[in-house]
């Protein structure tokens, strides 16, 4: 049947899939946007996609989502639906067409969050087994205090599910957020080795982090294109 793997065999997938992962406030989105600029400057075709951003899925769920209380399972399934829509509509076709696809969060976000919410570890992994393995998955490692400072300075109002309030960790939304994020870090750390994350120290300067990322990217580029790569002036 048409599994991702068989499509890969038949047509090949010339594009590159680059993923950034990490808790909120780890600086991953900033880094991904800088990477996008650099790749575009070097004439690559680039597509950037964000977690939980499918318009289609949003329009369909928005009606019910406010009324219904989400359980860990429905929460997980709705995010998987969103991912599947972006995967089927954008990510896979664009990779097959040779694009650089930059994903701000990927299946590892679901692994971390859903398991923290109480879903079964294997169940979540098997659900996402149609997804392609990224060519590079960067994990932005950051101490909880630094990420909290970054988040709270820019965006003081926390959302209910974002803070993990559904888990009854604490009645205080900031305390809940902190505990929830710490648990997510544990999940990321536990999968870092197995999933082959390229770990970036997110306490470093923005430029320094970007440099490390570009070096990693250079290694997966074909020889021909490597010679022509330039820094953005």
């Amino acid at each position: 049947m048409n599994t991702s793997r068989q499509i890969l065999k038949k047509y090949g997938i010339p594009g590159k899939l680059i993923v950034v992962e990490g808790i909120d406030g780890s600086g991953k989105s900033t880094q991904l946007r800088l990477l996008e600029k650099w790749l575009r400057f070097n004439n690559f075709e680039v597509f950037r996609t964000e977690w939980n951003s499918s318009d289609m899925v949003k329009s369909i769920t928005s009606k019910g989502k406010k009324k219904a209380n989400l359980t860990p399972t429905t929460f997980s399934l709705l995010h998987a639906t969103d991912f599947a829509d972006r995967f089927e509509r954008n990510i896979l076709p664009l990779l097959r067409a040779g694009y650089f696809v930059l994903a701000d969060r990927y299946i590892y976000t679901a692994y971390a969050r859903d398991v923290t919410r109480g879903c079964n570890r294997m169940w979540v992994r098997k659900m996402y087994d149609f997804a392609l393995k990224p060519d590079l998955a960067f994990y932005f490692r950051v101490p909880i205090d630094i990420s909290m400072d970054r988040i709270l300075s820019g965006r003081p109002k926390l959302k209910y599910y974002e803070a993990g309030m559904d888990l009854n960790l604490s009645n205080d939304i900031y305390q809940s957020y902190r505990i929830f994020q710490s648990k997510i870090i544990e999940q990321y750390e536990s999968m870092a080795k197995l999933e082959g994350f390229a770990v970036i120290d997110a306490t470093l300067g923005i430029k320094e982090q970007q440099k490390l990322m570009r070096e990693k990217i250079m290694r997966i580029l074909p020889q021909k294109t490597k010679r022509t790569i330039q820094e953005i002036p």
Partner: protein
Amino acid sequence: MTRISSRPKKTSASTGRQKRTRSVKTDPVRSIKKRKPVWYGNSKLGGMPYLQEHDISGRLIVIEGPDASGRSTQIEMLTARLEADGFAVLNTGLKRSELIGEGILEAKRNVSLGKRTSALFYAADFADQLEHKIIPALQAGYVVLADRYIYTLMARNTVRGIRRLWSSNLYSFALVPDLTFYLDVDPFKLVHRVFAKKQSLDYHESGADMGLSEDMFESFIIYQRKLAKEFEHLKKKYGLVSIDGNKTQEQVNIILQKQISRFLAKVA
């Protein structure tokens, strides 16, 4: 029932009812033996490890079958009968959840969801109903009559080229029903029943999204055959009880009622 108007009367009436409950056979709601819920998953691959395994006292009965196989008529008849027998009954079906029930109808109109996306969408909708409707009703002692269950959802996935194993893993969070019937109807006969109902074939029940044929009639037949073939596999794997749905409504109902009564007599 007489309406109770004044307070002292109400007290006496309610104690009277309690006495009746103890002595008379047909009490308002017949209670069913408690048991542990059974899930398709296990500790390695269950979907809802966070759900505490409370005992349930209700029972879950599923009617599966293709479009126009007479499921809803049968469920109506069964509901009336079970209620008359003193059971509390809840009807559920696919596509009716608070979460996205409306959304699925809307998406169907747009016809632009990929196969994996719609598979997960239906799973989310089902999970919502399972957790918010079916499980609470079972805990409260209801007989839940479900108009379709995970089997239809899995069959639809398979005929669209999704691996069976992926679907069965996905639905490992589901509760195992106590009884599942499959109304087996010849696809050609189905067409006639559909036409008798509305003179046109439903886009999705014809599998028109799959591009099986330019011809809607042909598409319907091919699609229904594919589903029926997949159900042959599901019947064996999940032990569905096959009922010859080519018979009349009344004949089918007699068979269903007999089997359900026999089952409930053992547990009620």
